[in-house]
């Protein structure tokens, strides 16, 4: 197995700009993550992982806890005046206790420094190999309590790595750690799409010398052919209930959109148009199928009621608007807009207002985090494919580059199922 971790690395110029914008907004929440009691002896330092997660989100100003000795472990250890003096509004403390059976007890509390009260307290019993995942869960709790939004630190991302003529579909934690190769091929792989269960990926592989859609369980490795009709089979998009997919086929001529059961079988044509229809995206509320079409002469974004009806055109500004994805609440659409380069743009679907979010110019494949707050996309940096992320308000920007190779075709996975793992 060939594993290449992604590295988060903000560009210096980018970081400077980011601080200006975010600092001007002055709405970062100051929070301090105190080293957990007992974590120094562990393979993973939970407080460091939590700190990195929160910092990367751009929503927090991380307050260094160093120098306050001894570092508090229990609420009774905390002298709130120390933390108020450092400017923290909230702080996290915790401890790890090894059980005789090899399991670890992880206790964590989130404290409101200003009101001097507990905001959250959670305990986990985990194996040592689950410490990293536990840290992401703690970061999710902190994020949710302090921002009111759902945390996405426990999610996974998929992307394609191209390295020396070899293509690998990889899955990693949302922080880029723990990358694993799902499938590798000498032929291109594109368009990974997560099933709502967060365990299966549909993707397009050229391994049979033409585009064929596969579905693969990323944990077991089992896979099957979803669609291998005459011509091209591509652009898989799952229905929100996971029972079927929208796909693009050329079996009847120009590229058109069809639906197919999640296990494969016959495909049903969704509509007929005089041009290319592709890149379907099923809105998370199940109401609409968004897609790209050049029926009007140039590629633009349309949507069709999933239950049938007439397609509506959504984009009118510019001659090239493609690759739509919609937030879980259905309020916003992200897409690629060509205007002096290809940029990630976001549309408020109620007002149809468009805002260009990225300052990169060769952007592709935008994908919303499952809380709708961050957009992951592919772009170019120094002649290499890299992943980048931008917050839905455009204020926070990140880059994810690998040490070698091109990274492209990102897809942000769903939230882990409640009660799972």
């Amino acid at each position: 197995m060939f594993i290449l971790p992604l590295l988060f690395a903000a560009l210096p110029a980018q970081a400077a700009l980011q601080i200006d914008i975010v600092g001007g907004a002055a709405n970062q929440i100051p929070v301090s993550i105190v080293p957990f009691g007992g974590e120094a002896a562990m393979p993973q330092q939970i407080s460091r992982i939590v700190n990195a997660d929160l910092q990367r989100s751009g929503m927090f100003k991380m307050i260094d806890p160093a120098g306050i000795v001894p570092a508090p472990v229990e609420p009774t250890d905390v002298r709130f005046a120390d933390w108020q003096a450092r400017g923290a509004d909230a702080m996290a403390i915790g401890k790890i206790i090894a059980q005789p059976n090899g399991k670890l007890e992880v206790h964590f509390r989130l404290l409101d420094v200003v009101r001097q009260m507990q905001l959250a307290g959670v305990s986990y019993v985990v194996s040592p190999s689950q410490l990293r995942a536990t840290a992401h869960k703690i970061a999710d709790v902190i994020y949710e309590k302090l921002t009111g939004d759902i945390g996405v630190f426990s999610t996974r991302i998929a992307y394609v790595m191209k390295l020396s003529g070899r293509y690998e579909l990889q899955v990693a934690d949302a922080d880029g750690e723990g990358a694993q190769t799902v499938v590798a091929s000498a032929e291109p792989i594109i368009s990974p799409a997560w099933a709502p269960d967060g365990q299966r990926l549909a993707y397009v592989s050229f391994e049979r010398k033409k585009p064929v859609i596969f579905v693969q369980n990323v944990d077991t490795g089992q896979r099957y052919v979803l669609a291998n009709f005459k011509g091209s089979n591509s652009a898989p998009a799952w229905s929100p209930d996971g029972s079927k997919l929208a796909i693009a086929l050329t079996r009847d001529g120009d590229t058109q959109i069809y639906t197919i059961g999640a296990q494969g079988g016959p495909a049903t044509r969704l509509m007929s148009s005089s041009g290319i229809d592709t890149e379907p995206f099923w809105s998370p509320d199940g109401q609409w199928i968004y897609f790209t079409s050049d029926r009007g002469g140039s590629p633009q974004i349309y949507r069709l009621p999933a239950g049938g009806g007439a397609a509506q055109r959504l984009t009118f500004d510019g001659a090239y608007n493609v690759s739509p994805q919609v937030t879980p609440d259905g309020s916003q659409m992200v897409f690629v807009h060509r205007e002096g380069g290809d940029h990630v743009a976001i549309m408020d679907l109620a007002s149809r207002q468009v805002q260009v979010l990225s300052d990169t110019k060769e952007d592709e494949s935008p994908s919303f985090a499952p809380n709708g707050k961050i957009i992951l996309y592919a772009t170019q940096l120094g002649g290499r494919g890299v992943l980048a992320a931008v917050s839905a308000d455009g204020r926070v920007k990140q880059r994810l580059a690998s040490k070698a190779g091109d990274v492209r075709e990102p897809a942000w996975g769903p939230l882990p199922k409640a009660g799972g793992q």
Partner: protein
Amino acid sequence: MKKALLGLLVVSALAGCASTGTKEAATVQDKSGQGAATTTGASQAVVNPLTDPNNILSKRSVYFDFDKSAVKDEYKPMVEAHAKYLNDHSDVKITIQGNTDERGSREYNLALGQRRADAVKKMMNVLGVKDGQIETVSFGEEKPKASGNDEAAWSQNRRADIVYPGE
């Protein structure tokens, strides 16, 4: 150019059963205009029209304008020659592979590459070639012939290739 040469029936027959025979013939074929058969020792060898550099059938690529799929006039004689060949050899089946440059959506480019391949196919259909003799596929932007981030490379990659069996 594709390195493999197709169906060199005549040449490989002349080259005998030596396993390197085909390779030698292929090397000679690459030296355009030097006479394909001389090293095989036969003076009257029939040159495969599909690979004879002097034959229009050796030309296989149709190039397209940006975001366009119309076959330009300059490629029509070449497409017509292949259509005639296919009409004369109704047992031969070809693949037309559509390609695009790297700009824009991979999925839209896949569809655009398909449309380019289909445009060449439709022209051949009009000239009498049976549907069953032509399969069209698209590689979109995934298999660029020219690497590079400029029009010189992009123009090479906006292309449909006519591919005969064994190539």
